[in-house]
């Protein structure tokens, strides 16, 4: 299953140990994102979409813990088991191979630093040598062949870990380096269609509008050309018109950078418009995943069917799903959807259905389709 995918998640179990009890947030999640595809992850609030995305980057906050499961990343011809990587390796992946953008951009930007500082930070973390080289070349062109600055940069390239280098770097003002970074930041901001990027670069997050902030965050995420972008409900808080602009932007950027995108949302309309494949989550499980057209035309899982039926259509009555989402502290045994399902069978109450391929590239976890193999 992992061979043709960029990122594969297998049987992921995540639990949160809180004062109120143990919350079984993820109960064996299965996901696969192929290179260059946009996978939509859709589900109600609280079904575990965000926890899944945090788990991929090993950012699950305490009191949460990844208990079981595997997460694989295919990069450079190698398959990495993310859960077993040392901390340094994970940090290399974060921001460079897999980048993430969030729901409320202004909350996810540090309020006391400018946009430029924060994007520059991402650039310097992952593309430092590139900029050092550029700075050296700039200094050479300007004729300052043997300045202190140039020597510091050269040392930082050759012997970055030595103590002498660190001390020298502390005393150096690094103006040229910062200028190169600034140039790149402005270009990045321009590429996300921010007008007057020079001015915006020097602004603080609270001075930006929601749409502009989200563009800046996208620019930051794409600054190191990641293989995959995780977008956790990036347009939920924006006006519909701004949302359309951002979606267009995401599509354009996918064409330019060829990254995969894991797009998390609870809005089926966005899924229909943007994604190649869809995965549907309910109460900590992925219950169905298929190509987007396939899912909308021939949904298999009862929950997916009910979701699609509940989309309001003009002239028709509102159809809602009876019952409420179960508490994840003491989740129901068997299939977690069984008490709201109109096709409920005896076996659904006892055994949890497996996530199997029912049609080509169409996976379901339901006893209706033989999920108890």
């Amino acid at each position, binding site marked *: 299953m992992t061979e043709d995918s960029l990122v594969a998640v297998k049987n992921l179990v995540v639990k949160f140990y809180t004062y109120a009890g143990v919350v079984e947030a993820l109960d064996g999640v299965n996901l696969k994102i192929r290179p260059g595809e946009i996978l939509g992850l859709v589900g109600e609030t609280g079904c575990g979409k965000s926890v899944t995305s945090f788990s991929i980057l090993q950012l699950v906050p305490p009191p949460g813990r990844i208990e079981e499961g595997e997460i694989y990343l295919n990069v450079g011809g190698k398959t990495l088991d993310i859960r077993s990587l040392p901390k340094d390796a994970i940090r290399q992946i974060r921001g460079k191979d897999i*980048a993430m953008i969030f729901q409320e951009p202004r909350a996810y930007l540090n309020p006391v630093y400018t946009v430029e500082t924060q994007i520059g930070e991402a650039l310097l973390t992952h593309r430092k040598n590139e900029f050092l080289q550029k700075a050296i070349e700039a200094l050479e062109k300007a004729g300052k062949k043997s300045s202190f600055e140039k020597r510091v940069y050269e040392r930082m390239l050759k012997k970055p870990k030595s103590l002498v280098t660190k001390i020298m770097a502390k005393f150096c003002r690094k103006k040229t380096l910062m200028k190169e970074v600034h140039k790149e930041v402005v270009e990045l901001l321009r590429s996300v269609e921010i007008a007057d990027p020079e001015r915006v670069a020097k602004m603080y997050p609270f001075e930006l509008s929601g749409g502009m902030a989200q563009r800046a965050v996208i620019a930051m995420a794409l600054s190191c050309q990641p293989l995959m972008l995780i977008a956790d409900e990036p347009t939920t808080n924006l006006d519909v018109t701004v949302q359309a602009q951002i979606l267009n932007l995401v599509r354009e950027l996918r064409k330019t950078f060829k990254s995969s995108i894991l797009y998390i949302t609870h809005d089926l309309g966005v899924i229909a418009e943007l994604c190649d494949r869809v995965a549907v989550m309910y109460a900590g499980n992925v219950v169905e995943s298929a190509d987007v057209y396939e899912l909308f035309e021939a949904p298999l899982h009862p929950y997916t069917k009910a979701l699609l039926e509940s989309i309001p259509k003009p002239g028709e009555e509102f159809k809602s799903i009876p019952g409420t989402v179960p508490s994840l502290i003491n989740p129901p045994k068997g299939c977690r959807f069984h008490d709201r399902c109109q096709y409920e069978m005896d076996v659904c109450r006892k055994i949890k259905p497996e996530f199997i391929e029912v049609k080509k590239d169409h996976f379901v976890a339901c006893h209706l389709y033989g999920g108890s193999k």
Partner: protein
Amino acid sequence: MTSLPAYIARRLILLIFVLLGVSLLIFAITTLIPIEIRAMLYVRNVQHTSPQQLIEIAKKRGLDRPIHEQFFAWLSEVLQGNLGFSKFSQQPVADAILERWPYTFEIVLFAAPLIIFIGIFLGVQAAIHKDGLIDHACRVLSIIGWSLPSFWLGLLLLSVFSGYLHWVSPGPLDTNLLQFRNNPSSGFIRYTKIDLFDGLLNGRPDITLNVIQHAILPVIVIVTINVALLIRVMRSSMLEALNKPYTVAARAKGLDDKTVIYKHARRNALIPVVTLSGMLVAGLLGGLVITETVFGFGGLGQWAANAALQLDVPAVLGYALLSAFLFVIANLIVDILYAYIDPRIRLV
């Protein structure tokens, strides 16, 4: 726009108001002082003036005029530096303050930075290692420190280090050095009136060291008792910052722990701590009353304590006014720092 000068101007006006209010409050208490005592300020030779003469002088100086007139007169006096007369120290309050402030300054100079830096450092460490050994240790130790009466801790340290181990004598300087300093023919010039600096300026570093030696115990007392609050606030502020979305985003960018904690979280966490530090330092003047008394340091605090014992209201009120004034100034500095650190504030 986020302009710093406009913000400062706004804060200044507010603070002037508070100063005015404080002086009103102090003045209200001043009116409870019998006028004979207030008249002493205008007399050169206090011993030889009879109470009747004092009352006459009081009447001449208008000390029995209606209250609102008196307030403005008093206010103009204060602004000119006339803070009343201290009966027990036989000198104008303003002079008494000028004589004694260097000793208080010597203690505060060491105590304030220590409180701030230790508080910030331990608070950050406690937050990073939440529920760990250092967190619990900091918590318990700081609660204990906060619970100790300052005079008791002072007496304890004094008796152990001074009375038992004889490491240092009470007072701001060794007696012989004190005599040397006061002796006009010794050639010791009091440039700044602060012994700590004068020692160096006069080529006598041993005096400076001696000052430090004497200041250690009072500084320990003040720091122990006041650092608790700072640690607590820094810890909770840091914990909050560490749970904020921007910290998660910083980690998701691939930044290492050190950068995330110290560059991103701590800078935001420091914001409320800066405010508290300013007020804490200004409030030190309260705790100094006890500490200076116990160690016989001869500064403003001890003077105020003795004045209170002698029921010398002008002196105590002068001290109160000074404390409030310093508090207000500290607030202003803190507000400016705050606006510098957090650009959001300049908009409000």
